[in-house]
């Protein structure tokens, strides 16, 4: 069956038997789940992946492309990695960008579903749909970028490679899958890949899909590209995401010393405005992107030294800087570079180390060198995590499991929801976001819930939960679910006047479907419910939808008025569930469950 924008099938690869099955994808499924996170979630449900341990051979690891990949639309070269998370034991969908998405789709499928475990540490080759497993030969223990370089040298530059670093090989529960310096970062997809004995996946292909209305798609893409370099994206183009540092600091929303404070005295030293004065900077783009949000800074201040540069995002700065009490920009840049090379999620790395630092501060953990503000300690901890040595073996488990090991009520200040470390948005200062964190199917997450957008608006009082917050949190979560399934970069979101309307127009041009904005709204909500179904099957319980006790019991040291009302949050979670059409405590209605099972 031919579909515009799609190949109409996925490849299911059993790594143990080396058997490849081409499985058709019906138009109804594609229209409902689209691609990326949505399609990946659907395929995980088909595989019944919720019931298996995330690191077991039976676990499924999905690489899902999307109808927009390969199109002339800006920011469309993206792929989703979807699996059960070894960190949360719940659903995990992480996105990354660039050539791997395009080459993966051109290899002739809409998704790859990997099951089983390769008999030896291997590289998976997918050459225009033909599958082969190669022994790793010299790649074991190599960093992510070195792995890509070595494989490209061996295979040729027309191959695109996604790889894991030592952290993934050592099953660190927040290891990433990396491609071209970008990471499918959160939730530990790299450990799932490591557990399958896969060091890397290399793809190339020549199988292009066609578009329903190529001429109009080109015209629309030109217009979108022009809009994408307007004032709405100036922040990303000129300063990058790290420009949040100073604004968040001023609002007491910059998590500091494991969420003990919301502002950091040395924030200025870590802001891009300061870094750009003393360091050589450059900027790069993902494939098929006109925005170019990636800002790199030289590791050293002296331009005469070796020109090594490090990509810096807000999340790296916050997690490896203020969260660990680190003031020195060089220390943060170096720590960030280490995480990139080891293949470690910076948010969970910083979050878990900061948690351990507070345990040491409170006398709950006897690792005297692990102190807030100590750069050497930060670097040492990162090395130990990636190698799973000494205290690193506990840190590699993430803050929730580590709190179970430390005991003594330390779970109250482990900075996580459902096991996923909280990103750089202080929940007490951004309380709609706090609700988004609590209910998120992936755990505490700023990519699946954009509720901070609401907090940064006149629609709510950001330091108090309000009745409107539930509906507003749903609005941003649904929008993210659609963007992650189409897939389009979220940095474009300010460019759209009516996102659902334009998304429907894009899909009409690509697929020829008579899809409408209201259908897409319904699809977005359906995708969120599908993720919830996965979690329910994986053992989700309503008690998981909450925040660590710290946020209810302690106000911020530097903003005494801010605390989250536990009863108000509980009330809003009930409202959220009801507005989603779920039961009051968050289970799907029987009709929703039936619908999802029929897909």
């Amino acid at each position, binding site marked *: 069956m031919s579909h515009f924008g799609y190949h109409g099938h996925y490849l299911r690869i059993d790594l143990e038997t080396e058997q490849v099955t081409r499985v058709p994808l019906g138009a109804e499924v594609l229209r409902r789940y689209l691609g990326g996170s949505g399609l990946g979630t659907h395929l995980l449900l088909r595989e019944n992946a919720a019931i298996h341990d995330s690191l077991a051979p039976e676990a499924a690891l999905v690489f899902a492309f999307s109808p927009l990949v390969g199109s002339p639309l800006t920011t469309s070269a993206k792929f989703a990695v979807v699996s059960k998370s070894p960190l949360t034991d719940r659903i995990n969908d992480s996105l990354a960008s660039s050539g791997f998405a395009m080459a993966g789709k051109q290899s002739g499928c809409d998704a790859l579903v990997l099951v089983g475990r390769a008999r030896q540490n291997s590289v998976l080759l997918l050459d225009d749909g033909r599958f082969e497993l190669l022994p790793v030969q010299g790649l074991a223990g190599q960093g992510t970028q070195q792995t890509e370089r070595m494989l490209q040298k061996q295979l040729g530059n027309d191959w695109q490679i996604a790889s894991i670093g030592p952290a993934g090989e050592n099953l660190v529960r927040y290891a990433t899958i990396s491609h071209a310096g970008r990471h499918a970062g959160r939730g530990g997809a790299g450990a799932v890949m490591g557990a399958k004995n896969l060091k890397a996946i290399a793809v190339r292909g020549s199988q292009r899909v066609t578009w329903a209305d190529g001429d109009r798609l080109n015209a629309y893409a030109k217009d979108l590209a022009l809009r994408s370099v307007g004032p709405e994206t100036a922040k990303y183009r000129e*300063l990058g995401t790290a420009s949040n540092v*100073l604004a968040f600091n*001023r*609002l007491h929303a910059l998590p500091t010393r494991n969420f003990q404070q919301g502002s950091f005295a040395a924030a200025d030293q870590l802001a891009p405005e300061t870094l750009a004065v003393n360091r050589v900077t450059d900027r790069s783009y993902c494939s098929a992107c006109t925005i170019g949000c990636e800002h790199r800074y030289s590791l050293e201040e002296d331009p005469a030294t070796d020109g090594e540069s490090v990509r810096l995002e*807000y999340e790296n700065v916050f997690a490896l800087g203020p969260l660990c009490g680190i003031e020195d920009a060089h220390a943060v840049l170096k720590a960030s570079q280490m995480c990139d090379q080891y293949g470690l999620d910076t948010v969970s790395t910083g979050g878990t180390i900061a948690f351990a630092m507070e345990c040491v501060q409170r006398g709950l953990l006897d690792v005297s060198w692990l102190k807030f503000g100590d750069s050497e300690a930060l670097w040492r901890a990162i090395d130990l995590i990636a190698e799973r040595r000494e205290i690193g073996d506990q840190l590699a488990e993430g803050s929730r499991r580590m709190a179970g090991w430390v005991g003594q009520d330390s779970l109250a200040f482990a900075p996580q929801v459902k096991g996923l470390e909280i990103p750089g948005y202080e929940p007490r200062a951004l309380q709609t976001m706090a609700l988004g964190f609590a209910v998120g199917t992936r755990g505490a997450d*700023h990519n699946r819930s954009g509720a901070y*957008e609401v907090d*940064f608006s006149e629609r709510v009082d950001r330091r108090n939960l309000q009745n409107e917050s539930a509906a507003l949190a749903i609005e941003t979560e649904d929008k993210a679910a659609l963007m992650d399934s189409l897939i389009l970069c979220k940095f474009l979101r300010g460019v759209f006047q009516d996102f659902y309307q334009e998304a429907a127009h894009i899909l009409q041009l690509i697929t020829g479907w008579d899809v409408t904005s209201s259908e897409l709204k319904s699809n977005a909500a359906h995708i969120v419910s599908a993720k919830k179904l996965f979690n329910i099957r994986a053992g989700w319980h309503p008690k998981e939808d909450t925040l660590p006790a710290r946020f209810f019991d302690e106000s911020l040291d530097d903003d005494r008025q801010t605390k989250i009302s536990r009863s108000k949050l509980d009330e809003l979670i009930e409202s959220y569930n009801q507005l989603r059409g779920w039961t009051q405590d968050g289970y799907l209605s029987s009709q929703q469950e039936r619908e999802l099972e029929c897909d």
Partner: protein
Amino acid sequence: MFVLVELFGIPRQRAGQAVVKLEVCEKSTCLGNIVLQLAELFPDLAEECFKGQQLQTGYVASLGGKTFVRSPGTKVQAGESLLIMSADSGG
């Protein structure tokens, strides 16, 4: 009497400074007037971030870092801080 305007991100880049002390004639003024005063002082800031008396869609103001506001008629008391920043805080 003064209103202290604190600029973040692109507004700071365009104005070339982090803080602007604006003189006001009365005990209070409004956001729209402040925007106009800033526009006179910093044409590059106005071009990127303002549209007449209003903030462009991508930008937002906050009174004392507490309440976010956009309406040009919003009262700003002398002595108060007004923050202007990008509305899009993702990253």
